[in-house]
């Protein structure tokens, strides 16, 4: 699969005599390098979230006499959100299987449902935020609520960006077909979407489940 001719023209192509760590085949093909680079981005995004988690954990008791975690969070809502995002992530995987086999119809259907479940998640989350602001538990109420809205809102913003990306990819696949560079973008999208679900698992546990312990 990988050959020297596939390597980018600007890359280092070593023809053999000394061991440079790249072997005698030159750098990996773009189909490996691009998702790997995106994987590095996703990991750095997780480092960003770890800072927000650390902030939240430090400030969770700084409620300034305002509402505390167990008064604000509703486990039923959170369970539906979790389920929606998990199913969305699963269908995203199915879309990748279909895309690999260049099945236009199935790829579009799976991507549509990936986005639909992601949208369900987002609607519930926005509803939760609006409800909290209505009862006076907005981000300016206490340090705890500031860190809560920053952490969960940052994840919500990622989901929003992911939804726009899903829509863009559906249009691109439709218009341009399964060209290699389009498929690479789709692969990056799937990495992004699965990573968001991983971050949600941490939010579910640290914010919602531990926050509503009896």
């Amino acid at each position: 699969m990988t050959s020297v001719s596939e390597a980018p023209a600007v890359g280092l192509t070593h023809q053999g005599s000394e061991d440079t760590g790249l072997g005698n085949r030159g750098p990996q093909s773009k189909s490996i390098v691009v998702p790997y680079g995106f994987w590095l981005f996703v990991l750095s995004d997780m480092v960003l979230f770890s800072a927000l988690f650390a902030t939240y954990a430090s400030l969770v008791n700084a409620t300034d006499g305002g509402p505390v975690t167990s008064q604000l969070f509703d486990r039923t809502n959170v369970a539906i959100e979790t389920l929606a995002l998990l199913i969305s992530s699963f269908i995203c995987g199915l879309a990748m299987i279909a895309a690999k086999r260049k099945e236009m119809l199935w790829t579009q259907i799976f991507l549509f449902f990936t986005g639909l479940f992601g949208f369900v998640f987002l609607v519930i989350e926005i509803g939760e935020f609006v409800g909290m602001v209505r009862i006076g538990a907005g981000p300016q109420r206490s340090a705890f609520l500031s860190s809560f809205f920053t952490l969960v809102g940052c994840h919500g913003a990622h989901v929003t960006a992911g939804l726009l990306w899903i829509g863009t990819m559906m249009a691109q696949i439709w218009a341009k077909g399964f060209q290699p560079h389009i498929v690479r973008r789709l692969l990056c999208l799937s990495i992004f979407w699965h990573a968001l679900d991983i971050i949600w698992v941490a939010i579910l546990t640290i914010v919602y489940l531990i926050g509503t312990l009896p």
Partner: protein
Amino acid sequence: MTEPDPEPLNVAPGEPHDTIISETIAYVIGLALALLLTGVSFWVASTSALWGPGVAVGLIVLAIAQMGVHLVFFLHITSGPDNTNNVLALAFGVLIVFLVMIGTIWIMYHLAANMGPTPEMTNMMLQRG
């Protein structure tokens, strides 16, 4: 290492490989395990059958297990030789994440314990930053 290798040395993270059946089964197993772990998490959080102070630790262990399930079955990060780059990048990411989180929580806990004798005082101090 110099003999020609028809297989690529690396695989991209997130890319399913092998046949359509095995790829689908991987995602189904991942979904089933994730649902199971989520269900257990919700049960652990609501039951009174478990020792209270241990519940939070148990929930974090379950969450880490579920992240592992997502990594293996959805993102296809395995310990295979073709995955070394992805695993090493992940390991470094995990190291930084744990340093940031545990380091911050540790320092802030001791700061609060040394500065504020009562929770209310700690509360005020964190509010005023």
